[in-house]
Structure formats: structure tokens, C-alpha cells
């Protein structure tokens, strides 16, 4: 089985302009990232702010070019300068903040039909039909077609962002912290929706997150990044069961424990110290 996406030694440099007191330089945001994801699987990318995970997302989504390395989609090498609509259709992205990623002046229906207008030869009536069908798929209704984004809650907006990404039948969906801005109960609904859609369309996900409990729930493979490098890459059970790198262990140790035993231990320790209720 060929991988839907394969990255080989992706490098990204950002130039820092020189000034009166400073020489021009470069920051290497990605230092040779390699991974591959097979069809229908989910790769989770975990890391702190500034580790380069969003830079990587932009490169995978063909928004930004890489400074070096190869990116293969469906086994075909990608050059950002010569993109075909066909290639564009294959990768879509959902951003973190649904309040920022939807155009407040565009009706939901227009927003969903726009990718079809740009990337396909569908007629107006087909576009409309497809948009209506997609609204239902993501758990909204036909009545939402003519509304504006401000009329929706955060969870509903994220559903819209997902709907927009799926309009062109992509093979790969890049999810850049799709549930971080959402409340817990809404987060659960959106994660369930993502699982349903993956099963229905045989989608491949690259799921970027800093929340380890979400990653553990959704991922097949996990890649941990730190300062532009991959420090750990393996199946979910390998990474969570037996983390090899120091940083991964720090990350796991820092995640709050919500199990009864650790709460009981903490409460007893505080009581012994004469603190607390």
C-alpha cells in the first residue's frame, strides 16, 4: 500500500532581514522532517508552541514551499510552483480558530461552494446540491445554507470549516489544532464527527495537537517534535507505552492526571501537611 503522503527530510528556513546593528541570518524552523501516512490512518503531530508543527502543516498543505527535502503525495513528487487543481484538491486544511478562519461577510452556502467553483467544472446546481449534502454530513441542516458565520457557535463553525475542507473530496485532511478552541463537550462532538467522516470517506488525517489525551484517542501513529526536529516517531502504543526520548517523557509527566488514585494521593498529602479542607 502506498502512502498518501510521504515527507523526506523536509527543511524550512526563515530569513531574518539584516538591519543597522544586525547581520541578515536564517532560522531553521524544520530540520529535516520525514514521515509517511497510509490511507485511512491518522498521524498525530505533537509539540509545544514554536516547535515547527504549524510550519510543517503549511508545507504539507502546499501553502508554503519547503526550503529543502521532498514531499510526495500519492507517490507523486510535489513542486509548489507548478501546482495543478487536481493536486490542490487532494490536500485540505482545517485551522485552529473557527472564529478567524471563516469569512464573516460570506454566507455559509457561498463559502462551501467556492472551492468547487475554483477547483472543479461543476455546474451551479451541482455545487449547490453538494454543499447542501455536505451540511447534512457534518451535522448541520439545509436551513443553515443562507446564514452568516456569526450566527453559529464555536463548535458549529468548526463543523463548517471541516465541511468546507471536504467539499473537494480531498484524500488528506490536515487538522491544525481543530479542537483546542472548543469546550470539552463540543470537543467530544467534533472528534466523533471526525471519526465518522474518516470511516465514511476513507480519509487520511494529519492531526496537529498539543493535547496528549486527544492524541491518544484519535491517532494511529504519533510524531513528537521539539525545536524543529522529530524526537519520537512510532505507533500510538509504542510512543505512549514506552517513550524513548527525554522530551517525550517530560511531556507525558507534565500532562495533568485526572485518575482517582493520583487525586487521592494528592489530597492525602495535603491533609498530612495541614492544608486544604
Amino acid at each position, binding site marked *: 500500500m502506498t502512502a498518501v503522503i510521504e515527507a523526506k527530510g523536509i527543511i524550512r528556513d526563515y530569513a531574518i532581514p539584516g538591519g543597522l546593528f544586525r547581520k541578515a541570518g536564517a532560522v531553521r524552523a524544520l530540520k529535516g522532517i520525514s514521515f509517511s501516512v497510509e490511507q485511512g490512518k491518522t498521524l498525530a503531530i505533537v509539540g509545544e508552541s514554536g516547535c515547527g508543527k504549524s510550519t510543517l502543516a503549511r508545507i504539507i498543505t502546499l501553502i508554503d514551499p519547503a526550503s529543502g527535502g521532498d514531499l510526495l503525495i500519492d507517490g507523486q513528487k510535489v513542486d509548489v510552483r507548478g501546482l495543478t487543481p487536481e493536486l490542490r484538491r487532494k490536500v485540505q486544511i482545517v485551522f485552529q480558530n473557527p472564529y478567524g478562519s471563516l469569512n464573516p461577510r460570506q454566507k455559509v452556502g457561498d463559502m462551501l461552494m467556492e472551492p468547487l467553483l475554483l477547483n472543479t467544472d461543476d455546474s451551479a446546481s451541482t455545487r449547490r446540491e453538494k454543499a447542501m449534502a455536505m451540511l447534512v454530513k457534518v451535522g448541520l441542516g439545509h436551513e443553515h445554507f443562507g446564514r452568516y458565520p456569526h450566527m453559529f457557535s464555536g463548535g458549529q463553525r468548526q463543523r463548517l470549516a471541516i465541511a468546507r475542507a471536504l467539499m473537494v473530496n480531498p484524500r488528506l485532511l490536515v487538522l491544525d489544532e481543530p479542537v483546542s478552541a472548543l469546550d*470539552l*463537550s463540543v*470537543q*467530544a462532538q467534533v*472528534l466523533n464527527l471526525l471519526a465518522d467522516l474518516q470511516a465514511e470517506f476513507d480519509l487520511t488525517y494529519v492531526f496537529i495537537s498539543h493535547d496528549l489525551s486527544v492524541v491518544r*484517542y484519535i491517532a494511529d501513529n504519533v510524531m513528537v517534535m521539539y525545536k524543529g526536529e522529530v524526537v519520537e516517531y512510532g505507533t500510538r502504543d509504542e510512543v505512549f507505552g514506552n517513550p524513548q526520548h527525554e522530551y517525550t517523557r517530560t511531556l507525558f509527566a507534565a500532562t495533568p492526571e*485526572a485518575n482517582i488514585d493520583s*487525586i487521592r494521593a494528592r489530597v492525602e498529602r495535603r491533609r498530612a501537611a495541614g492544608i486544604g479542607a
Partner: protein
Amino acid sequence: MALLEIRNLNVSFATSTGMFHAVKGLDLKVHPREVLAIVGESGSGKSVSMLAAMGLLPKTAKVTADVMSFNGRDLLTMPASERRAIIGKDISMIFQEPIASLNPCFTVGYQLEETLRAHLGLGGSERRKRAIELFTAVGIPDPEKKLSAYPHQMSGGQCQRVMIAIAIACKPKLLIADEPTTALDVTIQKQILDLLMKLQEETGMGMIMITHDMGVVAETADRVIVKYKGRKMEEADVLTLFEAPSHPYTKALLSALPENATGDRLSTVSDFVDMAALEGQQ
């Protein structure tokens, strides 16, 4: 005696579509040396209720309460000048966005010393000495140098440490932390929570931890209040809440945690509770 006692707090805002009730009939007590967590989703009124207690809401907000007292003194009838003497000294607050809550035009040292001058009236050299002590206590490396740094020269975690230093500068009796780690990375979150708990244990101050994260509740709280749409759903000590939650909404919240997933699907709140019934309930 309770440190902060609030009975039947109501907060409402006038909007173009009529009154919006952000907090409905909240009762709350915090004792010295205790950590109370208020947990709820966005819009549950958890921040607004604490801002009301601090007197930090805009004039458009209508705040009523049967009792609102701090350390036996009535906050409702107190003149504004007396209240100002308490706020920032005996009750202090840490906010969610550390970088946004510091003034970008002044050094962090100036902002810390401002609190010391306003509330304790310390002289220049004493202020500086105390400021260095505080920076050391919150774990800022090289405190003497960092006093003359501006907020943009520090990371988010360091800014939050500065905020904590300002908040504990006058040895408050009650510290209100409003989502203190939400904007921070998980490893930094751990450091900040550990720091807050260490300070709380050392000084024995009361603390209110406002959060939406059940993990943070599990790591910090003694007692927990769960809120939804302005109402208190449940109040329990932390072990009882996690072991045997009594309110369906709390059960739902706990089972929506990805680590509590059973099988392939996550339970959502609507699997447990009829939301309409919850909102109508008095």
C-alpha cells in the same frame, strides 16, 4: 470563618435583546488554606462571578447579592476607597493572558514595585529588595536583571510568573486565578501549577482556581464547584466529584474527556443530559 462568602449572587448585563443573566443565584464559600476550583465551559459565568466579587465589572453590569463578605467585612456596602485598599492587597487575581495583562510600556520591575508602593508604601531600596525576593520566589532566573526587562522580552511562562509575583507581592489572603495556564504549553502549565500550589501551601492563602480543564481541577483543587449557563450544578470535594459525581452534567463532562473514552466513540454531554431541561431548572 469563611474567607470569602457569597450568597445568592446575580449578575446581569443589559443587551439590545433584553437582560442577559450571566450568573444566577451563586452561593460560594472559600476558607483559608483551601483551594476551591470553579469549573465550567465558556459562558458558564465562572469568570464573571469572580470579577463581580473583585468589583472589576463595568458599570453596565448589574450585580446583586444577599451576602458578599471578605474576612467578615461586607464588600457590598463598603465605600470604593476601602474596597480598593483590599483589592490587589488581600484579594489578588491572575488572568488568563499573561502577556496581555502586563503593560507593554513599563518594565516588569516597575509594575511589580507599583503594587508594593501603592499598598505597602515601601521606599525605593526596600521595594527593590522585596521585588528581587519575589522574583526569586516565583523562579525567575537572574531576577536583578529581569526587573528591568519589558514584557515583550519575556516568554509567556515568564510573564505569568511575573503576574504571580505581582499577585502575591502583598501576601494576599485570597488569590483568584482565572485560567492561569490556559494560554501556556503543557510543560509550562505544569511548572506554573506547581509554583501556585507550592506558594499556596507555604503561605496558607485561600485560592480560587477558575478553569475549564478537568485535569487542572484534579491536580489542584480541594473542593470543586461545577457551573453551567450561570448556575451551579454541583459542589463537592475533589475526590467525590471524580469518584462519584452526582449531577448528570458533571458525569457528562467527565465522560467527554478523551482518556475516559469507551470503545470508539466519545460520550457527549447531550448523551447524558437534556440541555433544555437543565437550563429551565431552578
